[in-house]
């Protein structure tokens, strides 16, 4: 079962072994198996102590690294898994849905759910709120040839993170620069938009 429009968003796998207690998410086996099909994968697993240790090597003289140091203060983990595929259709919407399903619980709120039939970009952003405080964020980005999952555990300033565009060598995305396409409304993930 392959969708027409979606093939390759790099999925950030949060699927670290269960022993990594800080992360919020497990990668379903079907998604885990995508690594065999991917032409390139990215995997980052950094729990609290590792983040703290890595932050010592961030330079105060570099503005990017200075901002990164500020961003990761008090974080308990950053987990990323990303798959890039040669061709479209390498994964199914059902597999992505299995990822999303983990966040249908009271502590998680989906703050963004975007489906683009034409471009094949689907992005979901979930916030975890505990005691009225931000406790984590999950981003699931499904593109034509890329599937990406990001899990940041702990209080992160999302505005600061999103506004870092340009400093890491990647230009900020701007709606005006993106190709015009009919875009479906923000639909509930559980209704799906399988093709």
């Amino acid at each position, binding site marked *: 079962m392959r969708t027409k429009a979606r093939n390759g968003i*790099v999925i*950030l796998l949060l699927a670290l072994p269960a022993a990594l207690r800080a992360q919020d998410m497990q990668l379903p086996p079907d998604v885990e198996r995508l690594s065999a099909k991917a032409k390139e994968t*990215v995997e*980052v697993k*950094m729990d609290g102590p*590792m*983040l703290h*240790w*890595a*932050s*010592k*090597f*961030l330079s105060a003289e570099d503005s*990017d*690294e200075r901002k*990164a140091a500020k*961003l*990761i203060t008090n974080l308990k983990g*950053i*987990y*990323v898994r*990303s798959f890039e595929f040669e061709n479209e259709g390498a994964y199914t919407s059902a597999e992505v849905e299995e990822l999303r399903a983990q966040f249908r619980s009271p502590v998680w709120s*989906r703050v*963004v*759910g*975007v489906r*683009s039939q034409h471009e094949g*970009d689907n*992005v979901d*952003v979930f916030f975890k709120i505990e005691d009225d405080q931000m406790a984590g964020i999950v*981003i699931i*980005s499904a593109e034509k040839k890329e599937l*990406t999952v*990001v899990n*940041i555990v702990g209080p992160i300033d*999302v505005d600061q*993170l*999103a506004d*870092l*565009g340009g400093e*890491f060598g*990647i230009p*900020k*995305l*701007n*709606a005006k620069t*993106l190709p015009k396409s*009919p*875009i*479906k*409304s*923000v*639909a*509930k993930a559980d*209704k799906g938009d399988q093709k």
Partner: protein
Amino acid sequence: MTDKNMNLEDELKSALRRQQAPPHFTERVLAQIAEQNSSTQAVRTRWWSIFTQPLVRWAAVTATAASLVVGGIYYRTVQRERTQGEAAKQQLMLALRIARNKLQLAKARVNEINATPSTNRSRSEEE
């Protein structure tokens, strides 16, 4: 070992567990070191005069060589840690970069929706 000893030993471990050093302990140590370094600089210069004596010079050279070897071992350990730390830093920056990129993609898509006239999209369900 009897049960009585086991209980007492557990209580001892609990009573004697490590306690946190006072706040800013590390900073105070570093400050003392910095103060020591600046005050002994002048004294170090005067001591150079004893190395004009041949025997003392040879002894110093030997001791220096030995210390450099040992110090070099420790230095390699620190260098290895630094290399690993730099690699961890790169991983961290990569992760943040990817997260930022996807967030911006989401924002861009949302902006695009908001910019699209309502007749071109169905808004029967809103989050």
